[in-house]
């Protein structure tokens, strides 16, 4: 069953069409990748799903309910969490506080609880702390939990972002270029982590990635977009041999091919 169904989605910004009549399915429990050349509209799709952009037309149905017209925070409450292309941590806060932000949508203490500190509020505070610590351990960043996020190495910032996303106990995890800036070893452990968290928490993973090696290794389904239009869809093997995909990636001769797609 499709956990998320994007139906005929179009997104235009003042004359430029970022996404055109895109239809795709993300199956429950799958690892699905969205790929395409630079500027193909991949991040726009994520921004529409998470409510940061308002789609011009079309529908996005998640878990049986439409996400259109919902605000980003409401979509997070529905169980979709994203990571950002350029790791957006709360830089002047500690790693632990960053991960606690993930627990915001799964806890409910109000200002009255904060001021009165009654037993329910204290219990919840203890529970979210334990949950945050669990995910800090899970992503291997526990020892640095009291450091400020901006003092971390890039790899550790990524880990923190992962822990933060997991702490919200999502149904669907959207990863925007999770391998960007990672070395080969880190990429291998990333692949392992993606597979592991799917089996540990039964999270569905939908990712945008430029690193074809990673995409082909980790995904069960690959969707290819170019100029906002879906040009291919299938298993990694099917997509890799699709002539339209090869053309989109190679394009005209002078276009750079930083992705090493056909290597």
């Amino acid at each position, binding site marked *: 069953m499709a956990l998320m169904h994007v139906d005929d989605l179009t997104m235009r910004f003042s004359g430029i069409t970022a996404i055109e009549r895109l239809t795709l399915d993300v199956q429950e429990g799958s690892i699905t990748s969205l790929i395409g050349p630079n500027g193909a509209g991949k991040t726009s799709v994520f921004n529409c799903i998470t409510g940061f952009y308002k789609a011009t037309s079309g529908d996005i149905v998640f878990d049986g309910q439409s996400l259109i017209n919902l605000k980003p925070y409401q979509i997070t409450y529905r169980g979709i969490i994203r990571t950002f292309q350029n790791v957006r941590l*709360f830089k002047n806060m500690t790693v632990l506080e960053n991960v606690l932000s993930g627990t915001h949508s799964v806890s409910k203490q109000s200002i009255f609880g904060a001021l009165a500190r009654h037993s329910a509020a204290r219990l919840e505070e203890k529970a979210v702390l334990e949950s945050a610590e669990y995910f800090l351990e899970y992503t291997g960043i526990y020892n640095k939990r009291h450091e400020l996020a901006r003092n971390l190495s890039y790899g550790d910032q990524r880990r923190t972002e992962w822990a933060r996303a997991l702490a*919200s106990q999502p149904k669907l995890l959207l990863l925007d270029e999770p391998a960007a800036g990672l070395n080969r070893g880190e990429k291998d452990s990333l692949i392992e982590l993606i597979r592991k968290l799917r089996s540990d928490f039964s999270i569905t993973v939908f990712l945008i990635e430029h690193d074809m090696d990673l995409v082909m290794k980790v995904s069960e389904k690959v969707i290819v977009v170019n100029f906002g239009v879906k040009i291919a869809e299938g298993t990694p093997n099917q997509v890799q041999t699709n002539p339209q995909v090869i053309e989109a990636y190679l394009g005209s001769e002078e276009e750079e091919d930083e992705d090493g797609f056909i290597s």
Partner: protein
Amino acid sequence: MQYFTKIRQLLDNKFATRAILAALCVIMALLPLFLNNYVLNVLWNAFFYMLLAMGLNIIVGYCGLCDLGYAAKFAIGAYTTGILIKTYHWNFWLTLPASLAVSIIAALLIGGPTLKLRSDYLAIVTLGFAEIVRITARNSNITGSATGISAIPRPSFFGIRLVKPNHWYYVFLVLVIIFIIISGRIRNSRVGRALAFIREDEDAAQAMGVNTTSYKLLAYTIGAAMGGITGSFYAVKMTSISPSSFDFTQSVNILLAVILGGMGKIPGVIVGAAFFAIFPELFRDIPVIGDMRMLFFGILLIAVMLNRPQGLWPDKLGSEPGGLPGDINTVGRR
């Protein structure tokens, strides 16, 4: 910077912090026995600025919103109490919930439409609103127009009429402690963290499920409510209030106290407010220099901000200066 690190190390020790706080409470409680009325009044003034600075700190320090009209919040509380006592003969203590309610309603009316926009707009709207409040007060009969409201009777507390400087010293000391507890509880809670996430990165906060509009409104309302209550107590302490007590300079002073000490840090804000209230008094009686004390104060402020843009209060260990929540450059900027 060496000595900042030393202080910080001491403060990071929980037992040491508690001992220092307990000692400080005892000293503050005993002080009126040894001090004359003038010094008590200076300290009272410091407490008063601490209350205002802690209220504004919820808005500016915790949530990163830029409020340039905080004087209006405290004017609303002061006038509500003043009018209810003078015109309607209410008991002072009963005016407090009324003052709280009026402050909250005013904050919701101003913040509601504004906070949906990017935070920068709030600076302009709060500035305008503060002027509207002041000019309305100056031109309305019920607020006593330009002369304000005078001869507001002093309240009683369990039979004691609060008339002596040491009475007010204790009343405001208790208020300061209550405000510290409120600020601390908000800071270390889900709500306080949500406000900090908004301050750090509004988009990422939304992505983590924080309803940024309603949390910004919440911070703004709490700050306004704290200002309103402070205003109510100010009205009965001073026994007279007039529009000139609530002008733009007052808003700037409170904001300076918050920034000087270190935005978002409760002890920092308290030190900033104390510094702000006490420093000019130290030079008052010295000839020549006394007349130029505000000039020296200005130079000192600039020097502090250049050397420690994150405020006077030492940072947590392991963090470097610059770009901190206490950095003026991050206020209201997205």
